[in-house]
């Protein structure tokens, strides 16, 4: 378990956050670059002492400004995977993974067995003799994870673990990492600025904006009630911005957005508007739909993301103009035979769009 309630200043920047992560769960902390995510991770890891507040790992208080307690990083039992993995360039994969194993982890033979087990688990056996510079990005990530997890930490901190990977590797690694995290006994705090990652990894999601947690709760709560447009953007609710270019019949308006035109309920006044479209409002079909939906966009499937991970529904990223995210049942997805690259029609009613002043 991880619990923290800290305040910290860096120049003009103020970080003020309270979070808790139960064991065997993943909390994704999302926020833009500069929102204080990495600083928060470093505070938990014991690499920064916060100006004020408390951090508890398991049942043990590790940092408490009130009593002057500050347990340094090496005594915290925290696994920390830095953004670019920070592998030791002068050590082999084997020595990297075994770096933290010491006399505290049993006899030499016990340590060796544990190290071998970790190398096997992370599919690193054949790479054991290589240096980090001879590894691909995905392999480097596995080494970093193995190096942290072989010590069986109570808390695992992941700082943008996919950011250093190219797009193709990222897709391949994402599923792997999700399955790994789902099976871990530790409390995992996962930091990202990527909306799709938040959706894929977060059982619970916290949004950090300018050093403050603006929303924290289960994924579903975010999907239904994003508390800020920023959160909406993160959570894959389609958020479009455009100008009303003219009225349409039935009290509707046409809005010019980037890449196309969308018909929406008329807000009653002209000008710039923001459109919120929930992914579940979008219907997908392979043939042109014959229904009453006012908006029909053609495009191709970019990516399919189970929602929740391994769940009943599927998020479909579409290369329509504008690009949209739809959410349908897994069953429909299979019926439609959706796969990346498949051509589809995305349709939605004008009344399914929420129009907000910009």
């Amino acid at each position, binding site marked *: 378990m991880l619990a923290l309630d800290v305040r910290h200043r860096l120049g003009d920047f103020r970080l003020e956050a309270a979070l808790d992560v139960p064991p065997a769960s993943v909390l994704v902390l999302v926020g833009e670059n500069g929102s204080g995510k990495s600083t928060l991770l470093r505070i938990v890891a014991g690499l920064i002492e916060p100006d004020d507040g408390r951090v508890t790992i398991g049942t043990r208080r590790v940092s408490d400004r009130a009593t002057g307690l500050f347990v340094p990083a090496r*005594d915290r039992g925290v696994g920390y995977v830095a953004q670019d993995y920070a592998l030791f360039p002068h050590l082999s994969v084997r020595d990297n993974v075994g770096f933290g194993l010491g006399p505290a982890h049993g006899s030499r033979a016990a340590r060796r067995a544990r190290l071998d087990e970790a190398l096997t688990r992370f599919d690193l056996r054949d790479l054991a003799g290589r240096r980090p510079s001879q590894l691909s*990005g995905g392999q480097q990530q596995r080494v970093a994870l193995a190096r942290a997890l072989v010590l069986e930490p109570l808390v695992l901190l992941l700082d943008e673990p996919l950011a250093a990977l190219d797009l193709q590797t990222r897709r391949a690694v994402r599923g792997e990492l999700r399955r790994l995290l789902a099976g871990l006994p530790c409390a995992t705090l996962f930091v990202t600025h990527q909306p799709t990652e938040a959706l894929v990894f977060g059982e619970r999601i916290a949004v950090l904006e300018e050093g403050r947690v603006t929303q924290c709760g289960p994924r579903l709560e975010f999907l239904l009630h994003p508390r800020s447009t920023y959160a909406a953007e993160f959570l894959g609710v389609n958020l479009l911005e455009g100008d009303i270019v003219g009225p349409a019949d039935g009290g509707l308006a046409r809005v010019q957005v980037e890449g196309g035109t969308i018909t929406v309920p008329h807000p009653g006044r002209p000008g710039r508007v923001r459109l919120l479209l929930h992914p579940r409002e979008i219907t997908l079909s392979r043939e042109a739909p014959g229904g009453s939906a006012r908006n029909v966009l053609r495009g191709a499937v970019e990516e399919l993301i189970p929602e929740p991970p391994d769940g009943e529904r599927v998020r479909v990223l579409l290369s329509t103009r504008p690009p949209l995210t739809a959410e349908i049942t897994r069953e429909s997805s299979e019926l439609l035979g959706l796969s990346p690259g498949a051509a589809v029609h995305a349709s939605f009613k004008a009344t399914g769009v929420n129009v907000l002043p910009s």
Partner: protein
Amino acid sequence: MTDPHAPAAPSRPGPPLLPVVSAVALGLLVLLLGLPVVGLLARVPPPEILRRAGDPGVLAALRLSLLTTLASTALVAILGLPAAYLLATREFRGKRAVEVMIDLPMVLPPTVAGFALLMAFGRAGLAGGALASIGVSLPFTLPAVIVAQTFMAAPFFVTPARAGIAGVDRRLIDAAATLRASEGATLVRVILPLAWPSIRAGLALAAARALGEFGATITFAGNLPGTTQTMPLAVYVALQSDIDRAFVLAILLLFMSVALLFALRLGPAATVFSLPHARAGRPSPAR
């Protein structure tokens, strides 16, 4: 002819003056530095060198130089490495003053340094009385040679070693800390291996400086054959009495110095005098 309607012509590139001047300057410099070496090597044929190298006087100076250089380089490393680590990783009161003190021998005329050492450790010096009370008299002894060399060579080690240590990627040090490594373990297992090219370069520079030390040695330790007369001193003395011996000694010194230069240059590039921008400590770009 230029077109009268054309806008003011941009200043035409003149003849390539700068490259030419630079090339001439470089040529002169190489000549100035290289000619003496060639002159030295051309004078004495190799068999003659080998024959005279067995000369007892030459051997005594050679033995003394090797012994003192080894001792002073070791002393520089033992005292200099912790100093370099502290300077690279900590801020403390009086750090600037310490930095100036360490750099000072690099700019101090060696004879002045020797004189200053006498004023500190000589019989009438600041610490001379204390040393005398425990029965130690430093000046004009073999240990004095080592002290003089250490004094002159230390900054040549500390500066690059410090730059190398400071250049180790901070994220690797953080990673070691989250992997339960103590500060000492991080130093031994992460920092020193990664800073090694710079540390090795510093050792080579310090050894070369100690080997060639003349002014501070002759002022503080004297010029006693077999006790304090190192090779550079022996070259100087031989120049006035036995020119062939001077050549032999000079050529031996030249080879030893060149060997140190190779130790400095070989292997991975070292950070010697500047703080690096990026270090080998980064993992390669992810693919």
